[in-house]
């Protein structure tokens, strides 16, 4: 509501510009170029800014879009409107093929890979006979509706900007959805997302295809705007420039793409027109000045101009109130479910010469609260990672509800109802608490990218957000629901992780040092929460913790690890008086330590 008004105003302004008397036709051409560049940059916002996958090769996808329509309209007489879906399809298929190879790459290899095929495809375009080699294809028919032919820049202007505005709307819808949250979590590493069922390779491929289709759309429009296509605008040089546009505008922001395109296109134009007057000659001075100006701009606004601008506007996003009354989709708990939730037999994990977990065996029964304690480096978190599929075992078996999971991926383990928190908080700091927690409910929704883009996911989405809000209330962070997760204290962030894990509707909850960073009163609140969760929802809990008050206070059974081996197990009374445990872990009797 609050978001829609600026959008409508912007759309109306853009629609009115060509009708303003005295607007030079040249300005319209510039606006067309801005729109075309903005479409490509918008794909990069999603791919690079949000998803964290840097691509220098987007111009090649414009090429797929442009050449598809160029060939089909000139050689085969297709209608331009018929080639629109085909252009998008060809760009999309090219993205699938390149993406399957490329998105597996990580670190420096990913951008290098995109440069490689960016250059390769440029030469392919310029060498193929049926694409007209270096000369390209000319005589492409204009877009037309009935007898109205979009021959001049002033008419295709509308087609371009309708495409830009529609794409912006669809992209924003996508980001504000179940799929969007999975995409936004990509940049922070894959472990947290996968622990809640996000198929990260699939999410990466999705943004890759999405960005390519937007570039293909830009290419299709370009071909009918210029009425010709040649390889030059689809080379690596252009690919670098598109990435530049996205970064200058603000790589994480949809409107940053439009703003960045405006800044770069206009700046280049001004420099090209006026610098020769000032300095004379045919020198390449404008390129140098252009470079300097962009560096200065990025110094002033390192995250891009759009967020810099937004921080200076008095507009504050209205907090969305979440309806918590919607019924959640709960896990069907089979009445005859086995009493043993988790069974670990001789689990072993070896890192090179170090045996981090050495033939550990234990089990967790339904409704139990079990603690895993031991000195730092004893292998406790590694055991959690083995159970949840973050690491694969070197030996032994781990089963959840009778299913063997010792080499299952995290997404399969969470499907069985095992949810976890992390010792080192893994939240997305620039997402709100609500959005972070909603990632926990990922598997309880089903809406995909397409339905999110067209807002067909609202009923599903409302249930997920309602569940997230309810869990946030449950752990006592209702006041922080709309804040960015990164602005919370570390102790609060750990509690947010518990809420996110509860959103899974788990049968077994694994908590890694939940009380670290909490003071005594907060620890007591946490103990009450853990009890309540177990009693009301029949959730069993396995926790790692150094706070003995919590461990002794709420756990029915304790397992003590040292150097990867079980050195003791039993009730709190048995463990706290065990000389081996006192020697290895407690240091001195707990009563004295509590003093």
């Amino acid at each position, binding site marked *: 509501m609050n978001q829609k008004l600026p959008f409508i105003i912007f759309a109306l302004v853009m629609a009115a510009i060509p009708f303003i008397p005295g607007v030079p036709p040249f300005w319209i051409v510039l606006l067309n170029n801005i729109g075309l560049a903005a479409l490509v940059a918008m794909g990069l916002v999603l791919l690079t800014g949000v998803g964290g996958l840097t691509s220098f090769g987007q111009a090649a996808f414009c090429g797929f879009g442009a050449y598809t329509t160029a060939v089909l309209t000139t050689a085969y007489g297709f209608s331009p409107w018929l080639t629109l879906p085909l252009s998008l399809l060809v760009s999309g298929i090219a993205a699938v093929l390149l993406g399957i190879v490329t998105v597996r790459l990580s670190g420096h290899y990913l951008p290098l890979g995109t440069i490689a095929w960016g250059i390769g495809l440029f030469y392919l375009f310029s060498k193929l006979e049926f694409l007209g080699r270096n000369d390209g294809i000319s005589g492409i028919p204009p877009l037309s509706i009935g007898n109205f032919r979009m021959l001049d820049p002033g008419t295709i202007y509308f087609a371009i900007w309708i495409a830009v505005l529609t794409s912006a709307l669809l992209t924003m819808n996508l980001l504000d959805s179940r799929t969007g949250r999975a995409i936004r979590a990509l940049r922070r590493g894959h472990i947290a997302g996968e622990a809640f069922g996000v198929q990260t390779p699939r999410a990466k491929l999705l943004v890759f295809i999405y960005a390519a289709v937007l570039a293909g759309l830009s290419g299709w429009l370009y071909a009918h705007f210029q009425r010709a296509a040649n390889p030059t605008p689809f080379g690596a040089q252009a690919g670098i420039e598109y990435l530049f546009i996205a970064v200058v505008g603000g790589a994480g922001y949809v409107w940053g793409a439009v703003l960045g395109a405006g800044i770069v296109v206009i700046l280049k134009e001004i420099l090209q027109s006026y610098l020769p007057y000032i300095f004379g000659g045919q020198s390449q001075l404008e390129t140098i000045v252009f470079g300097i100006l962009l560096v200065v701009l990025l110094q002033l606004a390192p995250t891009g101009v759009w967020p810099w601008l937004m921080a200076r506007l008095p507009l504050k996003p209205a907090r969305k109130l979440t309806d918590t009354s919607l019924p959640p989709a709960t896990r069907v708990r089979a009445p005859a479910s086995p009493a043993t939730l988790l069974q670990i037999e001789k689990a072993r994990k070896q890192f090179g010469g170090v045996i981090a977990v050495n033939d550990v065996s234990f089990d967790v029964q339904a409704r139990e609260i079990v603690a895993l304690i031991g000195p730092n480096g*004893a292998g406790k978190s590694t055991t959690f990672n083995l159970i949840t599929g973050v690491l694969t075992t070197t030996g032994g078996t781990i089963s959840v509800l009778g299913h063997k999971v010792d080499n299952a991926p995290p997404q399969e383990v969470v499907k069985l109802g095992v949810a976890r928190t992390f010792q*080192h908080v893994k939240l997305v700091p620039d997402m709100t608490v609500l959005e972070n927690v909603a990632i926990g409910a990922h598997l309880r929704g089903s809406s995909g990218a397409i339905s999110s883009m067209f807002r067909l996911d609202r009923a599903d989405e409302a249930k997920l957000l309602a569940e997230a809000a309810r869990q946030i209330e449950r752990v006592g962070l209702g006041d922080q629901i709309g804040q960015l997760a990164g602005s919370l*204290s570390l*102790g609060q962030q750990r509690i947010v992780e518990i809420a996110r894990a509860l959103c899974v509707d788990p049968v077994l909850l694994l908590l890694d040092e939940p009380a*670290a*960073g909490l*003071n005594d009163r907060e620890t*007591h609140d946490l103990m009450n929460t853990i009890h309540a969760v177990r009693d009301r929802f029949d959730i069993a809990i396995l926790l790692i913790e150094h706070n003995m*008050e919590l461990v002794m206070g709420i756990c029915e059974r304790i397992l003590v690890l040292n150097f990867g081996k079980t050195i003791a197990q039993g009730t709190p009374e048995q463990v706290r008086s065990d000389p081996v445990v006192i020697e290895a872990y407690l240091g001195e009797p707990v009563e004295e330590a509590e003093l």
Partner: protein
Amino acid sequence: MTAMLAVNGIEVCYGAITALHGVELHVEKGEIVTLIGANGAGKTTTLRTISGLLKPRAGSVQFSGANITGVKPHVITARGISHVPEGRGIFANLTVHDNLELGAYLRKDKVQQSEYDRVFTLFPILKDRIKQNAGTLSGGEQQMLAISRALMSKPQLLLLDEPSLGLAPQYVQKIFAVIKEINAEGTTILLVEQNAHMALVTAHRGYVMETGRIVLHDKTKALLASDRIKKAYLGG
């Protein structure tokens, strides 16, 4: 003003949210001062403002008589304030040994073998891991390394943010003993801790924070005896 560190009415905002509403505190040379309070009260924000990582919107920070408000973090470090942030802050690709050496990066004197010995007596596991990359340590071991590195820096003023976080009980006892020891050797300490009891037993004076304000400050003996503190932070 003779205080080594004086924080005068600082106000800090994160976007639209005001995290600190005019925080006042001071630390005298040779003291251990602790800052306790609930999660989200603004303790970490206070430390981050002192060490220059955040700029206050109002108020000032004075160190040894000089105004250090808005000064860059590395300059503040060079003047003698060392900050150990909560959570991990170690160099994962360097060895344990190199991490410790880097702690002493700004020191002009030579690191004594006795200082290594102290670290290894405190955390024997670090001696076993001395040649390993710090990134291969467990979470708790990384915390040990971060604290040890700070001990090597021998600053005039040490800002410690939750040194006991994630440590097994036997180390929690030891870490507070070492904090007292390095204080006796001449380092002034401002300590943020969730383990309020241990913090109050260790420190000379304490400040209590609630929702971005200092609500109470006194000698730690008095705070330990206060009913209000017992109720709110000591689980009594």
